[in-house]
């Protein structure tokens, strides 16, 4: 189909078109491939964020009991599931390996009450390009 797309970055489009020409494919075909990849990437990010939300829900639900029974120990939670409590950070990290959790979205955290932390960033000056 034919579409008219506004506000496309000029330099970016030039590079995109050049790459399509180098690969010997039409710009329209290249754009379809790029759109497909972008749609897939968005799904991956969504799955990761979903697991992150589940981990935090589990952590917050368990926190009162964990603080009461295991303060300052380390907890591992993976994709919403409680994995275990460990004496040290080293043990908790090793549990990620031994439970085949590497590459998954996990919480590996010392059990402690929430504390406020504001991360502050500075400023730098730059010339306009």
């Amino acid at each position, binding site marked *: 189909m034919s579409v008219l797309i506004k506000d496309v970055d000029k330099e970016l489009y030039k590079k995109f078109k050049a790459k399509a020409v180098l690969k010997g494919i039409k710009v329209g075909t290249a754009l379809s491939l790029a759109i497909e990849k972008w749609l897939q990437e968005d799904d991956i990010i969504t799955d990761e964020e979903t697991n*992150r939300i589940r981990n935090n829900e589990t952590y917050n639900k368990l926190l009162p009991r964990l603080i009461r029974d295991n303060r300052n120990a380390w907890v591992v939670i993976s994709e919403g599931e409680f994995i275990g409590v460990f004496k040290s950070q080293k043990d908790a*990290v090793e549990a*990620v390996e031994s439970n085949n959790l*590497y590459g998954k979205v996990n919480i*590996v955290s010392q059990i402690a009450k929430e504390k406020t932390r*504001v*991360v502050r960033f500075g400023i730098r000056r730059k010339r306009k390009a």
Partner: protein
Amino acid sequence: MIAFAYESMDFALTKAPFLEFSLADPLGKKRTNLKGLVDTGYDGELLLTSASYRELDLRSFELPVSDLIFGETVTGERLDIRNSSAVLEFNGLDVSFLVEIDTFKDCKEILIGRKFLESFLTTLNGHSEEIGLEFLEKE
């Protein structure tokens, strides 16, 4: 002591102190060599690009997300921060540092902040454009 020369940043008006280091996930499965800007305006340990965070699979070692932890720029803009842990090493220094990583969506800079520098006597020599780090062992 280890020392690094200042470097030019894209379009910046002055050269800046950068540190070169290797960073690995806590299990040591993935490692990458990086360069970070020393920024004493940043109060954390290590701010990492979202790309490097992903490359090292640091999502496998995250700290809990909290509404009480957020980033704030000098203009007061708020950012949702994601935290994890990683192991940092310098060439020429026989010590590994387990650092708390900050990142946020589409973060494109690597910053080394004041909390990390607490372990060092840091010398910023503007005349020779060099930064020196002397590791201070805890008593």
